[in-house]
């Protein structure tokens, strides 16, 4: 019994009130506004006009960039979440082993998580510059390459760099989630598996993965949401250029709303993004709530 006595029935709601007010005003209201705007005519100066049905949506979807942007978003989310989960998992397995300097290694791995994405993106933007970038500088001075390499020869390669940087900054989060899961595993399981003669791969498949699965699920779903919403990397490095070919939904939406002043289609895109996130969030909630029932 971990509850304390409550004198009045309404008391718990009083405790929740500040939090509810804060979230209602600054999270729920913007959602409502975005929905309302997406069905209204908006002039270039920002005045909200009459209800126009789905015209904003058809404008947004009819734009030739829309298909590219959605495909980019898919590539971006799948590659960044998939690879960072895999690499983060491996990193966590390694950092969970005992070795000299483990504390230092763990502290270093957390660095990218603590750094603002704009700053990380700016640094990488400098690193991969062809004319004077630091990657060429280091590789040339170490004698690994003979001539400067153009690391951003085409927009496809630039987009791959952006995905790579996305993976780089996402790994620490996955690592620490998995590490949390790994540390909660009772060593007795491994001892039992060793007695049964299980090798490394068997232990991984039958002990480690099933037991870190909950933390892996949480980190994956949260990552999908963070990565989907990730803005500064692409905005700093390519700004979606050339012609929206490296844009994801979020950067495209931003440019549409605040550079091209097409607020109508932009809000329609917001709603589309919102619906996609809702589906992901629904799946996530089902998982979490089921766990809650188990407790």
């Amino acid at each position: 019994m971990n509850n304390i006595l409550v004198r009045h029935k309404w008391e718990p709601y009083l405790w929740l009130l500040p939090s509810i007010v804060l979230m209602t005003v600054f999270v729920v209201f913007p959602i409502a506004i975005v929905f309302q705007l997406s069905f209204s005519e908006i002039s270039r100066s920002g005045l909200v006009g009459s209800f126009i049905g789905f015209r904003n949506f058809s404008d947004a979807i009819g734009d030739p960039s829309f298909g590219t942007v959605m495909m980019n978003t898919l590539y971006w989310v799948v590659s960044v979440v998939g690879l960072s989960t895999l690499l983060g998992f491996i990193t966590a397995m390694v950092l969970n082993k005992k070795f000299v300097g483990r504390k230092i290694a763990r502290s270093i791995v957390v660095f990218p998580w603590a750094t603002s994405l704009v700053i990380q993106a700016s640094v990488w933007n400098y690193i991969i510059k062809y004319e004077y970038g630091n990657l060429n500088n280091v590789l040339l001075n170490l004698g690994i390459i003979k001539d400067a390499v153009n690391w951003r020869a085409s927009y496809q390669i630039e987009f791959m760099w952006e995905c790579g940087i996305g993976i780089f900054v996402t790994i620490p989060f996955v690592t620490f989630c998995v590490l949390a899961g790994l540390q909660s595993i009772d060593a007795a399981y491994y001892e039992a598996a060793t007695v049964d003669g299980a090798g490394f791969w068997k232990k991984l498949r039958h002990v480690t993965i099933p037991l870190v699965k909950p933390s892996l699920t949480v980190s994956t779903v949260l990552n999908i949401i963070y990565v989907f919403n990730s803005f500064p990397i692409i905005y700093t490095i390519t700004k979606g250029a050339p012609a929206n070919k490296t844009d994801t939904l979020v950067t495209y939406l931003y440019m549409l709303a605040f550079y091209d002043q097409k607020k109508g289609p932009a809000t329609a895109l917001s709603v589309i993004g919102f619906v996609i996130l809702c589906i992901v969030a629904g799946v996530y909630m089902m998982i979490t709530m089921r766990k809650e029932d188990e407790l």
Partner: protein
Amino acid sequence: MIGLSSRPSTKRNLTAVILCLTAAALMVVLLSLPLFHFQSVLFSKKSGNTFVGDERYIAASAEVTEAAAKYQAHQALGEVSITENVTERVNSKGETTSLVTFQVVLSSSRNGWQIMASSLPFGGILRCAMLLLVGALVLMGVSLSGGMLNESLRALPKWRKSLRGISCWMVLLSLALIPITAMNTIRVFEREIIFRLSTPEAAGLTELLRSADLFLYGGTAGEGVGDMLSGLTYSSTFALWAMIPVLFLILASMVTLCKGELKSTLASGALYLFVIALCVITLYPYYVMVITAFRENSEATDMYFTHMFPTKWIWSNLADITKRGVLGYLMNSLLLAGGATLIALVCGIPAAYAMARMRFAGKKGFLGFVIMSQMFAPVVLLVGISRLMNTLHLNDSLFGLMMVNAAFNQAFAIWLLRGTFVSISSEMEQAACIDGCNTVGALIHVLLPMSAPGIVTTLIFVFINAWNEYTISTVLISTPAKNPITVGITQFSSFNMIEWQYLFASSLLATIPVIIMFLFIEKHLVSGLTSGGVKG
């Protein structure tokens, strides 16, 4: 008993010694094979307005043959050949004539012994690697002398054991020096010679040129060595790279002799290799940030990639950025992140307390609401947020930004705090309640002090999130003086010119405090994520 257990180890040791000696012999063979091929133009002569076979052609040809003969006299140089390239063209009088280009080309290769004999830097490195290898073999031999091959490891005298350990490390070092040798050849020929030829006053260049002359041309080139070297092409052969597996074989057999088995040593070696690679890659952008922050602009945008580290550390960059308002941005960020954290905790602690300790209808609904709000980073809602702020007259104000940041961090705060509260038993609070303390008193006097680590973790986490936030700030703040640091640094990158040194100097100021804070909570974060995120 002893006889039984030592027999397999004797066999294993013998195999290891044989393997080691075979590999060492193979190493000698590899050193005698060509490790690098070089090709350079020793002499070239153009003869225009001629026909193949006429007087001018014969004269030029004789001149070239004479020049070639001078080099051919040195047998050790390599293969000297004459190439002749004929281009036909029509001159102004309408006659067809030829332009004949003669070249004396030297193609040569150098084996390991020749490289080690040269005074070029990579010769020194290879010499070092081979000395280490020989030293290791000698030490291992000493440790094995006197019939110690059959001795089990436990009975081995300590000094013999440490000799074997040292020889393992020496081979490892020698192994690492092989790729460094290859990298150094590129560095010497591409950067130190070719590149510095354009700045003849460079120190130590003449010395280097003389060594290169001796190494490649047997000292015959003299003054013309610069021209010859600038047309140099070269490549490494498989023999150089075959040294790596051979040395690895020696290392493996020595590890077997030293540890009695190989597998776990190799596994831990791979582990350390992985960790080192991980740390190097992670720290690389920070290295770039630091060295660029203290460079001159001309050096930060140096197209010739001259230096890896600043030639002069420009500390005045820090003073320059303070003149551009960076301190103000940092203050704004401090205010913003501090305010957002305060609001998030003031709203979040009561909610987390109720969620952890009280029973009420709609608890699940509220949890769902919290989780849902965690789903929406503000970026998708930017248009809505900016419109809301207009309505509330909070646009272009730090206070509005604080509220938005606090609201979007509410979910994480409640999540982490609730996890902390649940993990603490409520007995103390119940006792306090019986003593006449109300729920508020129980929270403030009993629970909060007990959950201090969890609260500090949450506090720092929200603070860092707000400090690093960029997107909403760019939209909501329109007065430059009110920008937080993440937006403030973008003033250094205008459309056509980026002042990298200032950009990174201010990035450094924005990053260091946050990393230090993160290191404080790193330990708690793992347990916080476990209790909050994973256990539900």
